[in-house]
């Protein structure tokens, strides 16, 4: 339970500042501090058992199928990091109370900070590697929010995005590494993985895994060449820098190196990748730090350098080096956090961080200056301070390794060079800021900070001194247990004494101190040399890179997707040609051996007419009216084909749909140009012709292949059961209203919806009403020719009669509700054509959308009625009744269903055609009318 609370309390703590938002700033700070303080207390309560080597474990099932169980694991390493996170976190909370101004939203800051703390604790306490990743990414997110806290500053936004991009990318690599790791080890539990070091290192995927893993660690820990995000993250408020960029987040990568040390280290590859990266980073960071004029910039590069140092230590594949690494983690956290906070104080109280302007601050803030001097000295590795101890160990370790064979001496040499730089920039930090003449152009007079703002710095500096003097007493146990965890129990002999006698490491330290002082004294030449080099503005480069990436993406995307439907269609059809054509090519023979029906002259004539008129439609497609007439012939021939090949129902439907379509197209042509301009380039026409021919050839061949193959189908069932089970002799109709009635229900729904959609399309459409036809003739004078009007009125009853006839016979003979509905609708449309909208509206004022709804409802309810009899939806019913005089009659539920179809069709057709017709009248569809 204990370990859980260490994580849970800060998590709950994210809410505290939000809840206290209305309270005073101090209360907010104290309230926020309460949760981590309590967590710290719990952590301290476990000291005994952790130091004794116990591993506290807690586990809950979460996603067993992914191998992701919530596991908390507190060992020495986790203890060390938790301690750093919580303790320094508390100091930061206190510090931030004074650092943040009135304009800054304190609840937001504290909430983000607590979120970050939770994430960090999550990483170090996790006992499951997927869970580690979960918290790992959470640190990226929360640090993004913290870096961009002053979002109105452009460099804050950019810095945050840069950090997120780099660490996010690294996080993805880490995920891949973890998945590989889990897969190799057969478990995602940390404990299992740490035991499988040998297995993992022998696996063929180990190199890939390691590279991915290190990419994750190095990006987070700002190792070269990913280091550049860290200086740019300095746009964040200083408490953030002090916390994230010195003590915690940048250490997350280091933490992982330490955490997986037993499983991954010890190989040649590990050494090469880790130690060389660390060494490079150590040098690059130290060198660049010297030339930064920004206080925080200098600290940032120094952090990079120290992180490189720690990385190098872990890369040396030596147990003692690992111990030194752990030790330096502690020391770096203390002195760097205090330095950042002190820098923040200077910034806060003097209004600047530019060391070219900050001079002689000793006279204004002696206490702060003293504190900073001590911390800087610790950073430089001055004896009696904690930094000296770990640096000493570091030097010793660089001397112990023989990894580069005969060239192994390079490592201690370069380490010393880095140390010289380290001393030089530390010296600059002190001298340039606190002495070196008078301040230049500061906006306010610097002064000491409030009492409690300095307190965190004081505490940390005190620790630097105390650890420096009595290391074994103060951090002996901590280091011991942490190092033991890193080394999986194989702790080497080592001593934390201040004095190891005169030895090579001490000499290296001395050289570093002396060299550093000398270098600082001679800094002028170095600075001149550096300023002669071309400056590298990483932020701008990154921004430019991102812009180029975006622009490149845009260009590529627009090149692929140029917004032209013709291209989309061509691609769709090409896909068709390839996918449908390939199997055809693989086929042995197209024909399937089924005997063909002989061709007769009449059918040949029909086919010829069909082909000619289809061809004519294409040829004349730009003369739209002519094309329409030609395609009517095609439609007519198709209907005749249906009749010829024993499908009277199809012919009827095709014919009735045909007429409605022609009316529709005629209506539409009024609002569209009558001619299509010639626009396609010849090459495009050729391409289209080719594509169309290929599609045609494939479809025709497929059809031929099917028709000439023998066949067995479920249709025999329909023929056998139409009369006995469906009560009708027209099998097609019985299929429609009974066997597959659900299709029909969907089909009339489509029709109804289309009608609604069309009404919607016509609502409030801007009318464009041509005053003359395509040739420029004004329209004819007579709106409603007399003969047509009279005849249309006489045809109506006839058509109604025919449609009733067609309706009722449908079940047993060709016909049915759909065709009947279209006949009725056409008869009414004929009235619209011959008499106009006003005339019809005066005699019949129906909202057709309601007719559609009623029709659908009838069909729907017919289906539902079968539930009353405990039957599935749409179960049909029919029976024969013997009536006196009339004889036998059949009643069937199919009739009711067909009635629904009929009403829907009438409603939908009229809604479509009449709405379109009404566009030029005072009854135009508007939205209000419908409301």
């Amino acid at each position, binding site marked *: 339970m204990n370990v859980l609370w260490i994580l849970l309390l800060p998590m709950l703590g994210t809410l505290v500042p939000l809840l206290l938002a209305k309270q005073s700033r101090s209360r907010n700070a104290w309230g926020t501090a309460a949760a981590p303080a309590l967590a710290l207390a719990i952590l301290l309560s476990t000291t005994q058992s952790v130091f004794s080597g116990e591993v506290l474990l807690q586990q809950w099932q979460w996603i067993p199928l992914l191998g992701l169980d919530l596991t908390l694991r507190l060992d020495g390493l986790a203890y060390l990091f938790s301690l750093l996170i919580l303790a320094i976190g508390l100091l930061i909370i206190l510090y931030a109370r004074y650092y943040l101004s009135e304009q800054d939203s304190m609840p937001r800051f504290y909430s983000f900070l607590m979120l970050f703390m939770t994430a960090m604790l999550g990483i170090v306490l996790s006992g499951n590697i997927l869970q580690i990743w979960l918290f790992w990414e959470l640190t990226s997110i929360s640090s993004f929010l913290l870096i961009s806290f002053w979002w109105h500053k452009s460099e804050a936004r950019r810095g945050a995005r840069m950090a997120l991009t780099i660490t996010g990318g690294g996080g993805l690599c880490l995920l891949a590494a973890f998945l590989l790791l889990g897969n190799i080890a057969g478990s995602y539990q940390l404990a299992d993985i740490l035991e499988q070091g040998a297995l993992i290192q022998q696996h063929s995927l180990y190199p890939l895994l390691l590279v991915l893993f290190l990419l994750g660690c190095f990006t987070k820990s700002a190792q070269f060449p990913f280091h550049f995000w860290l200086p740019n993250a300095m746009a964040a408020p200083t408490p953030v820098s002090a916390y994230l960029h010195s003590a915690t987040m940048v250490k997350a990568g280091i933490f992982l190196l330490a955490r997986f040390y037993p499983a991954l280290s010890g190989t040649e590859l590990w050494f090469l990748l880790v130690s060389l990266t660390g060494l490079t980073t150590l040098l690059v960071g130290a060198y660049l730090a010297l030339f930064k004029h920004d206080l925080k910039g200098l600290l940032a590069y120094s952090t990079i350098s120290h992180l490189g140092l720690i990385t190098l230590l872990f890369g040396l594949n030596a147990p003692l080096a690992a111990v030194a690494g752990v030790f330096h983690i502690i020391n770096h956290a203390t002195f760097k956090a205090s330095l950042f906070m002190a820098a923040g104080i200077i910034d806060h109280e003097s209004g600047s961080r530019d060391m070219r302007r900050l001079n002689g601050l000793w006279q204004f803030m002696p206490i702060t200056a003293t504190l900073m001097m001590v911390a800087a000295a610790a950073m430089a590795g001055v004896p009696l301070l904690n930094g000296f101890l770990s640096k000493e160990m570091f030097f010793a370790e660089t001397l112990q390794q023989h990894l580069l064979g005969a060239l192994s001496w390079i490592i201690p040499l370069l380490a010393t060079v880095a140390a010289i730089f380290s001393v030089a920039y530390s010296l600059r930090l002190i001298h340039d800021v606190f002495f070196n003449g008078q301040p230049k152009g500061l906006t306010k007079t610097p002064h000491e900070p409030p009492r409690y703002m300095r307190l965190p710095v004081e505490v940390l500096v005190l620790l630097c001194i105390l650890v420096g003097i009595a290391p074994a007493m103060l951090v002996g146990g901590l280091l011991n247990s942490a190092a033991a965890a890193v080394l999986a129990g194989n702790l080497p002999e080592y001593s934390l004494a201040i004095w190891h006698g005169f030895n090579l490491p001490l000499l290296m330290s001395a050289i570093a101190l002396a060299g550093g002082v000398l270098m600082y004294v001679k800094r002028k030449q170095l600075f001149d040399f550096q300023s002669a080099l071309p400056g590298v503005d990483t932020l701008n480069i990154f921004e430019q890179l991102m812009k180029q990436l975006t622009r490149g993406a845009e260009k590529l995307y627009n090149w692929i997707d140029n917004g032209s439907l013709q291209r989309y269609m061509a691609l769709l059809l090409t896909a068709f040609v390839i996918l449908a054509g390939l199997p055809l090519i693989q086929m042995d023979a197209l024909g399937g051996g089924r005997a063909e029906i002989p061709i007769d002259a009449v059918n040949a004539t029909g086919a010829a007419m069909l082909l000619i008129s289809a061809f004519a439609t294409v040829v004349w497609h730009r003369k739209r009216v002519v094309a329409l007439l030609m395609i009517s012939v095609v439609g007519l021939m198709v209907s005749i084909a249906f009749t010829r090949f024993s499908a009277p129902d199809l012919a009827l439907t095709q014919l009735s749909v045909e007429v409605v379509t022609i009316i529709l197209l005629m209506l539409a042509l009024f609002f569209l140009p009558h001619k299509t301009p010639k626009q396609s380039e010849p090459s495009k026409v050729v391409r289209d012709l080719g594509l169309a021919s290929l599609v045609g050839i494939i479809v025709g061949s497929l059809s031929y292949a099917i028709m000439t193959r023998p066949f067995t189908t479920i249709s025999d069932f329909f023929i056998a059961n139409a009369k006995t089970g469906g009560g009708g002799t027209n099998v097609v109709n019985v299929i429609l209203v009974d066997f597959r009635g659900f299709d029909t229900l969907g089909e009339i729904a489509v029709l109804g919806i289309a009608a609604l959609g069309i009404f919607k399309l016509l609502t409030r459409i801007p009318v464009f009403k041509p005053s003359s036809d395509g040739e420029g*003739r*004004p329209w*004819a*004078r*007579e709106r409603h*020719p007399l*003969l*047509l009007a009279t*005849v249309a009125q*006489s*045809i109506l009853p*006839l058509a109604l009669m*025919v449609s009733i006839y067609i309706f009722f016979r449908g079940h047993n003979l060709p016909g049915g509700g759909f065709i009947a509905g279209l006949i009725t609708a056409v008869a009414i449309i004929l009235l619209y054509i011959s008499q106009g909208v006003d005339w019809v509206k005066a005699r019949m004022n129906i909202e057709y959308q309601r007719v559609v709804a009623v029709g659908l409802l009838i069909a729907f309810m017919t289906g539902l009625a079968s539930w009353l009899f405990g039957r599935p939806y749409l179960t049909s019913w029919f029976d024969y009744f013997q009536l006196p005089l009339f004889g036998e009659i059949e009643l069937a539920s199919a009739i009711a269903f067909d009635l629904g179809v009929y009403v829907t069709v009438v409603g939908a057709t009229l809604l479509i055609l009449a709405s379109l017709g009404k566009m030029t009248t005072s009854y135009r569809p508007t939205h209000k009318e419908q409301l």
Partner: protein
Amino acid sequence: MNHWLEWAVAFFLLLGGSFVLIGSIGLVRMPDFFTRLHGPTKATTLGMGGILLGSIFYFSMSPETLSVHEMLITIFLLITAPVSAHMLIKTALHHRLKAVEHTQGEQELKRGQAFASKEGNRSETPDD
């Protein structure tokens, strides 16, 4: 099978088919739109009547039924053919189609075209 009926069927079918064909020949042969209109309007209608009569007789040959519903198609064609012709010739007037050269009553044609298209002056009488 009733022999007489069979003859009747053959007769009417042949008669109808001939007239239908003649109507279409007219459509192709005649020199201008107005003369072309006559064939399809009249000959074809009659031809259809013949074929439909043939069909009526044919289906009446089978013993149990008297098939007369083809009458309905005939009625329909008789009602609609003049209207179609009327609409077509109105369109032709509106489009000012030329009549073949030796057509008599040129002014009547002109006047008809004028009335088809003229806007306004609705009560004007077609007097010279």
